[in-house]
């Protein structure tokens, strides 16, 4: 039986995974939007995510709230440590949110171009920053014996973390391209398919490099991992979906391709979680200063109260989210409700 701290480690992981899988395709679509010229195609990509992106972003807010509630020390240490990076992330998310709403309000080519750009950059920056942040966590942060971050913003931009940033960006381009292919038709569909295939190749190469780099940079992540059955389950799941993804693309079974890329994302986050556990933030100053699920958590009373909240709320969330996705199933049609 898992203890409460472990359960919340898993739940925060589930929220982050939900966020990555759902807002991830929004980011991918937004990045591809930067390279779209045709106005109709632009509107298709905006309307592909228009009804759902806002709900998708809530996974991030809830993950943030859950991290605060369950592991306040991590919330406080990591967010204040990543100060400048987080401010940039928030600005990017603000730009993305308003650009979608503002773009269609003025019928002027320059105006739309400006918001297209804001939307694209607002979609490009977050996956890179998330990747860099995760890279730094995997790498370990300079944390002293009092649990206080002693690094700097520039130190966060180390080669390993940037590599993870690029990996994350490519992964979401792949994921978003598959989603856009499901939602679009004709040339836009074909182009999205080809982007998805190319991004898959880039992803596989970067993933192998990143794994090797992780073994070199953070050997502690791999201690005893080969004896962990969970590692093997996730590893096999991930490998299978990576292999299956291009087949599904070739067979034009896009929903299978989308499920595959979702499983790739989820199992990758799962693998990171397995290798980190029970640490949440390893300390490079001294591994024993690391923030773990036990030394940085809330009390058992809070964790169990929050578990009740999650068990009451999340099934309902999943239920109506599924309903909303079903309403907007299929290709995008541009009608009077569109933006």
């Amino acid at each position, binding site marked *: 039986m898992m203890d409460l701290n472990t359960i919340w480690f898993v739940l925060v992981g589930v929220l982050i995974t939900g966020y990555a899988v759902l807002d991830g395709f929004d980011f991918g679509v937004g990045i591809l939007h930067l390279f779209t010229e045709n106005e*109709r195609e632009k*509107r298709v990509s905006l309307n592909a995510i228009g*009804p*759902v*992106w*806002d*709900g998708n*972003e*809530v996974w*991030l*807010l*809830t993950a*943030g*709230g*859950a991290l*605060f*509630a*369950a592991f*306040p020390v991590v*919330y*406080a*240490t990591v*967010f*204040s440590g990543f*100060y*400048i990076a987080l*401010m940039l992330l*928030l*600005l990017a998310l*603000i730009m993305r*949110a*308003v650009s*979608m*709403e503002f773009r269609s*309000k*003025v*019928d002027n080519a320059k105006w739309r171009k400006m918001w297209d750009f804001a939307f694209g950059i607002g979609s490009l920056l977050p996956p890179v920053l998330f990747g860099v942040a995760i890279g730094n966590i995997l790498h370990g942060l300079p944390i002293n014996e009092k649990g*206080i*971050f*002693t690094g700097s*913003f520039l130190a966060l931009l180390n080669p390993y973390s940037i590599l993870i940033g690029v990996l994350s960006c490519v992964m979401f381009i792949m994921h978003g391209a598959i989603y856009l292919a499901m939602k679009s038709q004709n040339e836009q569909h074909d182009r999205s398919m080809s982007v998805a295939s190319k991004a898959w190749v880039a992803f596989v190469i970067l993933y192998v490099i990143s794994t090797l780099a992780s073994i070199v940079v953070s050997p502690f992540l791999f201690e005893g991992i080969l004896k962990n059955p969970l590692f093997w389950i996730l590893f096999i799941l991930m490998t299978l979906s990576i292999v299956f993804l291009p087949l599904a693309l070739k067979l034009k079974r896009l929903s299978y391709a989308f499920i595959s890329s979702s499983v790739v994302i989820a199992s990758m986050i799962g693998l990171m979680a397995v290798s980190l556990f029970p640490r949440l933030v390893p300390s490079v100053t001294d591994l024993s200063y690391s923030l773990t699920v036990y030394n940085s958590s*809330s*009390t058992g*009373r*809070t964790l169990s*109260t*929050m578990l009740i*909240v999650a068990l009451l*709320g999340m099934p309902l*969330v999943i239920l*109506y989210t599924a309903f*909303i996705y079903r*309403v*907007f199933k299929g290709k995008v049609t*541009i*009608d*009077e*409700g*569109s*933006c």
Partner: protein
Amino acid sequence: MDAVFLARVQFAMTAGFHFLFPPVSIGLAWLVVILEGMGWRKNNLVYQKAGKFFGKLLALTFAVGVATGIVMEFQFGTNWSEYSKFVGDIFGAPLAAEGVFAFFLESGFLGLYLFGRNRVSKGVHWFSALMVAFGSTLSAFWIIVANSWQQTPSGYIINNNRAELSSFYDAVFNPSTLPRYFHTVDAALMCGAFFVAGISAYYLLNKKHLDEARASMKVAVIFGLIVSLLEVFPFGHTHAQQVARTQPEKFAAIEGLYTTQQGAPVVLFAIPSSKPPELKASLEVPKVLSWLAFGDVNASVKGLNDFPKDEIPPLELTFISFHTMVALGMFFILVLLWALYAIYRKTLWQNRPLLKILLWSIPLPVIACQVGWMAAEVGRQPWIVYRLLKTQMAASVTVGAGEILFSIILFGLIYLALLCLYIFLLVKEVKNGPEHDLVNHTEKNNLVEA
């Protein structure tokens, strides 16, 4: 400038700016529910058009609210990490609960409401508007829970140098939660009512979209008057009584009571100063404050001089913001009474001065929300958690003044731009009016074909 001061400036700026939008969204969402509901049940095209039109303005307001709200969820960690560590066992839970119970609901159904008009039945479409309104109102609840716990902490014990949860129920329903929740949400409903009334007034003044304007004006005035009356009594009154009971320093500061006295007067107007502590040009009604606060004209009300000097809030800001809020509250009731009378006498549609007042009153309830929030938060100083943790001790230790200044400038510029864009687009949408949709639709289709 020290980092704590800058962190406070940043929090005041980002929270204050964010708080311009959610009250309007909440109020507007309920009015859209009413208008869309009437349009649907009565199969009335006028209400349908009005509902759809205000639904679009809701989307615009909501978007800026969401965009600026993301900052709030993370700012406690970035700027107030010592606070976050101290209160995390209690304060994080309502934020997470807000996500689980409210954010998903409002965001998910807003997408369905805006994009799904032709994809779901009218009933489901109306239900999606209802869920947006309900979700945003529920979201306000969890935020008020978190903020109220800072005002009147309960359900905790101090252990391991932090506040640890002893009773979730007591922490959620701490002494100020419900009074503050009703007072705040009702204020949001007023923002929505004045928003709809003001825009309707604009159309009446310009003799455009008269059918929709009359329909929405009637709904907004009746709805607005009910909530404006409720705002003063019982909600404002019970909230003030609760402050008098649970945070006497704040009560003395907002009321401008410097010396402890029995039969304390209520100050209607004054120019406050703290050095020396006195009220200039004050207009007072004797004994009324004692009666309002404790239901007894001779009750003793504690004045600021009876508290330790380093535990009282800044005087000028709390006094002025609180009195501005009260004055605005009275103004709202008078204007709406006048408007209701004019509707009853069928003279409102031609009454240009009154219509102009209604038009220019659109921002006033939002300002009332801002100054009310200022009175509440500045009145809590010097504490970040009342009598448990001082603001001075709560900021992030690793974040320097330079970094904070950088982000203040960054966010200041972006927020200024957002505000200008919001107002520009709002005015533009209003000028286009409810019928714009259909025109725009064909334009867009042409564009698509081209």
